[in-house]
């Protein structure tokens, strides 16, 4: 009887000790899979080494986490990683704390394009650009320009994301003498692309599957995903057209009501360190968001890895995040009504 009581007490003690330990952890909200692993490997583990504080991750899709955060009465995480434009929705819903950048010494090295807002700092950057299977595309097409997507030889070969049409909308507008703000100028151009569009992929995995099976040998694709596929041995080529490619920046923010603000700032500072940024670039072929990252010259030479101010200014087409957040619903509605069907 006494043995049972002691055993039960030990088990309960271990459970509560685990729970107490989880309470002390810094909670980070992020996407799952390789994104979670990337944050843990290059930032979280270093943070725990320096502070002794464990990091706990809660994962989910971009919109799912936003929905949950909106519905929660207290913040479920201390730091949230999300995309720059969705971060605007968080900020507009009063879910983020205004950042005190004086507590993040490495903020001084952050490039202008990654200083998203008073509530968000870029963690890494990537480009949405053209990726293709050179074995399944006419050799004469090398995508020197975005206008090559409209080549009649690519009929039924192209895929674009279904959740974010801002890339092709901005490109069409640009090719029609406008920009994302005057996107209507590109409506006719975008409608002319319809014969070449075969599918609209639903997520990163779907994108990777469609290009690897050759179903859609040309895609407007996230550069990180393309490099992942290349690393897996896929015959995929990534190009940056002469007009540039659409910049995407993932960001980190402090959740309003977090009781671990100082630890969160420490975490962010580690994320922006030259060492962490260099490791993330080496692993994922992203662009560092700081100007002092020691990037391997081989990685720096890769299309879509922006390491110099000149590259950032010339190769990155920036769609203002405020515009993107405000226009996204309108763009999606127009795109669904006029392009997808």
């Amino acid at each position: 009887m006494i043995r049972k009581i002691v055993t039960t007490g030990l088990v309960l003690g271990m459970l509560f000790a685990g729970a107490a330990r989880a309470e002390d952890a810094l909670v980070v909200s992020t996407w799952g899979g390789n994104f979670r692993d990337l944050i843990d490997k290059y930032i979280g583990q270093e943070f725990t080494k320096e502070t002794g504080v464990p990091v706990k991750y809660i994962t989910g899709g971009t919109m799912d986490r936003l929905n949950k955060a909106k519905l929660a009465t207290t913040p479920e995480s201390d730091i949230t990683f999300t995309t720059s434009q969705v971060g605007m929705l968080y900020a507009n819903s009063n879910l983020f704390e205004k950042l005190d950048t004086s507590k993040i010494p490495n903020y001084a090295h952050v490039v202008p394009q990654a200083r998203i807002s008073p509530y968000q700092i870029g963690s890494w950057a990537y480009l949405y650009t053209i990726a293709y299977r050179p074995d399944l595309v006419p050799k004469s097409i090398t995508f020197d320009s975005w206008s090559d997507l409209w080549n009649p030889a690519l009929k039924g070969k192209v895929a674009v994301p279904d959740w974010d049409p801002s890339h092709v909308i901005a490109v069409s507008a640009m090719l029609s003498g406008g920009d994302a703000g005057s996107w209507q100028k590109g409506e006719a151009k975008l409608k002319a692309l319809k014969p070449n569009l075969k599918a609209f992929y639903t997520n990163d995995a779907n994108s990777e599957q469609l290009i690897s099976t050759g179903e859609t040998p040309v895609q407007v694709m996230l550069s990180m995903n393309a490099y992942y596929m290349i690393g897996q041995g896929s015959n995929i080529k990534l190009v940056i057209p002469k007009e540039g490619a659409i910049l995407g920046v993932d960001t980190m923010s402090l959740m309003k009501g977090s009781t671990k603000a100082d630890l969160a700032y420490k975490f962010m500072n580690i994320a922006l360190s030259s060492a962490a940024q260099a490791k993330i670039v080496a692993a994922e072929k992203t662009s560092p968001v700081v100007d002092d990252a020691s990037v391997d010259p081989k990685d720096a030479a890769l299309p879509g890895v922006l390491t110099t101010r000149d590259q950032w200014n010339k190769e990155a087409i920036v769609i203002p995040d405020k515009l993107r957040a405000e226009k996204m619903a309108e763009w999606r509605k127009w795109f669904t009504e006029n392009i997808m069907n």
Partner: protein
Amino acid sequence: MNMYSRLRGWLVSPSVIVALCICVALFTVFQFSLRAYIPGSLDVGGFTLANFTGLGKSIYRDALWNTLILSIETMVFSLLLAYPLAYALVRVRNRALKSVILITAITPLFLGEIVRTYSWIIALGSNGFINSMLRKLGLVEFPVDMMFTHFGVLVALVHVTIPVVVLMLAAAIAHIDRDYEKAAQSLGAGPIRIFLTVTLPLSMPGILASSTTAFAWTFSAFATPQMIGGGRVPTISTLIYQLGFSSMNFPLAASLSIVGLALTAVSLWVFGKLTARFKHIGGH
């Protein structure tokens, strides 16, 4: 008051609570559908009917029509393919064969919709299994387009639905009293006549129940039309996701949901009316 009467209240109460919760959720969706969308914000604005007046466009009519047609087609084909499986499952005497049929019919249920849909992406693709076989056999010169088509979505939906229909039909067929069939046989009826005049009518409750389930289940299908359809086969569910949740335009998503719900209710009512005369068949 006896014990059953006293317990009945306790037994019914949870279902009343669940029903109330569902009603509250539906009311919340309805009131969202009458609110204005504020771009760039998760909050909603004041009263408006714009979310409904905008649904007259062809894209929304096409999505409703596609959903209805896919649901009817899936129901019919699932029934036609599942009935022989269910019949064999119940009537086969060999236990090993019975196990094989059960595993073949039911195992897909354990894989989940996403895994099965990804498998169909590989099978239906231009370089997939089906096209490879067709080209090897010399039946086609160029790949047949099956992905991102109505046909591809239908095939995947039928495959996803068959296990459920098999289970429901098997339960109904298993409850048929074999004496009726023996009586028909003793009166000189052949196997086909016995099936058509005795077995099939007596399995009607199962047919109606599984048909209704297959229809309603397919009406709300999302992952399969989304992934196999590739945005080319719009359904109510995929539109709600694309225009509502991914754009955070909850009022539009809510209005599409209300319209979808209304269409489901009308469809099931019409189905009920059409099949009313079959409901009494099979009672014994």
